[in-house]
Every structure is written in structure tokens, then in C-alpha cells.
């Protein structure tokens, strides 16, 4: 029997990341740089929110968790376990694209490893999402590599977005302490450090071909705290907004 607290911590972090990232990306719907991209980016935002939903459902069905809607939309800020990276407002499209690139490669690696998870319910989910996530990384790679080779301004914007995003992105792999050790020992997944190493290799290869300098990990101060419930100033207003209609009558069905 796998330690429920530990597996809950992992699933909550994964689901909250996907939910908030999807929520942020969905804000671009109708406002994107060109119609075709608007449609593609919106689809991926929907997929992310869908990933979160699927994870909350696993927690409800397998781990005696609460109703996914209530859990996702109505918790207190400190009970969310997302990293600061996904909380930041969208800013310009360069930031959103770079966040999408860094986030989705991490997600792709995580789900690939979870196909072998000893926590059985994660296996079919990881297999099911494989195709979706493949499109997300394909989309991100195409944009990053094309924009980085499309003139000085565009390259500079992407480099600057990478510099801003990198320390935040390291927050995706915030060490999970004792709970993480248990999950590694139980072969639920190989742990944050292992995912991060694969991720660094992967993104380094794509970014260097694109002509971007990946900041050295040792020089970057990872932005941690999210997994312990300490958040950036952006999360609380986001949560108030996200739950605004729900909260007008929590007993009602919407």
C-alpha cells in the first residue's frame, strides 16, 4: 500500500500546476497574435485544464478526495501546491510561449515516466495523454526555434523570456522531502531531480540549436515555495477570480 499522503502531495502539485497553467493560457483565447495560433493555444489550454481535472478525479476515486470542482475552485490559497512559474500573469506572448515550452517539456517527461508508475491509476492516464502532450511540445518547439531565428528583436525577446522563465521553471522540480523519498522508494516515479536532469538535457538541445543560451543551473536561484503552499502575489487574486461565480452560491449547481 502506497503512502496516501505522499501520493496526494504529488498529484495535487501536478494537477494544480496544470490547472493554473491552463487557466493562464486560456486568457489568451480571443486575444492571440493571429487567429490560427489563437485556436491552437486555446486548445492546449483546454488540454491542460483537462489534465488537472483527470488528476483530481483520480484523487477522488482512488484516494477518498473531494469533489473535483469544489477541490479545484474553492480551496484556500495555502492548500494549493502549484509552483510560482504558472502563477505569473501572461505578460507578452514571448513569456507565454517560453513558459509553454519549458512547462510542456517537463510535463511530457513526467508523464512518460509515469507510464511505469507503481501507482496503477496513473498508467492509463499517462498513456492517454501522450498524444496530446506530443502536440504541445511539437507546437512549442516549432515556435521557439522559428522565432529565435527570425531576426534580432525576436531572438532578443526569446532570450529575455528564457532568462526570466528559467529560475521560475526550476520551481517545477521543487524537492518534495520525505514524501518524495517514499514515492521514489515505492517506484511511483523516479523523483524531481531525475525528471529535471532529463528536462535540462532535452531543452538544452533544442535551445542551443535555436541559438539561445540556457542559463547555468548553478547561477539560477530556483523559485521554490509553491509545493509547500507559499505562493507568489499573483495566486490569491487568480483564485478569487476563478471561484467568483462558484462562491456566490456554493450550494448551487452551475
Amino acid at each position, binding site marked *: 500500500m502506497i503512502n496516501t499522503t505522499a501520493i496526494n502531495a504529488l498529484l495535487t502539485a501536478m494537477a494544480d500546476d496544470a490547472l493554473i497553467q491552463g487557466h493562464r493560457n486560456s486568457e489568451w483565447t480571443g486575444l492571440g497574435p493571429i487567429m490560427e495560433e489563437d485556436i*491552437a493555444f486555446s486548445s492546449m489550454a483546454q488540454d491542460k485544464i483537462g489534465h488537472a481535472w483527470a488528476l483530481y478525479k483520480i484523487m477522488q476515486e482512488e484516494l477518498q478526495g473531494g469533489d473535483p470542482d469544489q477541490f479545484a475552485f474553492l480551496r484556500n490559497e495555502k492548500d494549493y501546491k502549484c509552483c510560482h512559474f504558472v502563477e505569473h500573469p501572461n505578460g507578452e506572448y514571448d513569456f507565454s510561449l517560453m513558459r509553454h515550452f519549458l512547462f510542456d517539456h517537463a510535463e511530457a517527461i513526467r508523464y512518460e515516466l509515469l507510464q511505469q508508475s507503481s501507482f496503477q491509476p496513473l498508467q492509463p492516464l499517462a498513456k492517454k495523454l501522450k498524444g496530446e502532450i506530443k502536440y504541445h511540445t511539437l507546437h512549442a518547439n516549432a515556435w521557439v526555434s522559428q522565432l529565435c531565428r527570425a531576426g534580432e528583436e525576436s531572438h532578443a525577446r526569446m532570450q529575455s523570456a528564457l532568462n526570466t522563465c528559467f529560475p521560475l521553471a526550476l520551481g517545477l522540480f521543487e524537492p518534495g522531502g520525505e514524501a518524495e523519498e517514499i514515492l521514489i522508494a515505492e517506484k511511483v516515479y523516479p523523483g524531481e531531480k531525475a525528471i529535471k536532469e532529463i528536462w535540462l538535457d532535452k531543452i538544452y538541445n533544442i535551445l542551443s540549436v535555436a541559438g539561445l543560451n540556457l542559463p547555468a543551473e548553478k547561477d539560477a536561484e530556483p523559485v521554490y515555495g509553491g509545493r509547500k503552499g507559499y505562493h507568489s502575489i499573483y495566486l490569491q487574486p487568480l483564485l478569487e477570480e476563478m471561484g467568483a461565480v462558484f462562491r456566490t452560491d456554493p450550494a448551487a449547481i452551475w
Partner: protein
Amino acid sequence: MNNQSLDPRVNRLKLNASGEAVTVQEGENWNVFEVFHQEKRGAHHEHVGCVHAPNAQLALIFAKEQFGRRKKCVNLWVVRSADILAFDAEDEDMFANNGEKTYRDASGFKVMEKINKFKKAAKES
């Protein structure tokens, strides 16, 4: 400054409310690619519309969501609209008599009639 929008997303955009003209340059919406959609393995790719994209790689990526997000789809093709070669509309008359050329059609050959006639004749003789 418009901070009164009911849309919180809009309030975060920091709109320029000066009323200054904004224009899009010709060519800024890139080139046009025709999209062909394959519903299932073994089926033809069928023309379903087009996407604006700077190159074929992004055209295919855009086509996947604009034309493959709802209905069943297993593959897509994209090709620059400029590379499509077609007949002129007024040259439709070249195709006009096709239907009359029954020697190209199974219905143009009355084999059974001939066989039956032969059999009937053989029986009678």
C-alpha cells in the same frame, strides 16, 4: 485609461484607449495554405479549407487544431495555395460530354442480353 471593463482579462491588458489608429501591414497575416483532411486510414485526403501561416511547418501545426480538433482525423496535408494548379472556371465545358461516353461505363455493355439471346437461340435450334 480604461480600467472599467467587466472582463478582468481586459483590465490586465492595459489598453491604449487613445483611439490612435492601428493598422496591419499587408502580408502580416502570412501566406495561405490549403488543408486536406484524412478522416481514417485508407481514406482520401479531402480539401477542408485553409490556414494562414508563414511556412508549411506552422501551417500543419495550425491545421491540426483548426481542422482536426473536433471531427475524426488521422492525418492532414498542407500545400501552399499558390502551388495549386486548376482549370479555369469557364473551361468547365471540357468535361461536359463525359456522361455521354457510355463506352467508358459498365452500363454501356449489355453482356447479359447477348448471353441470354445466345442461350435462347441455342435452345430453339
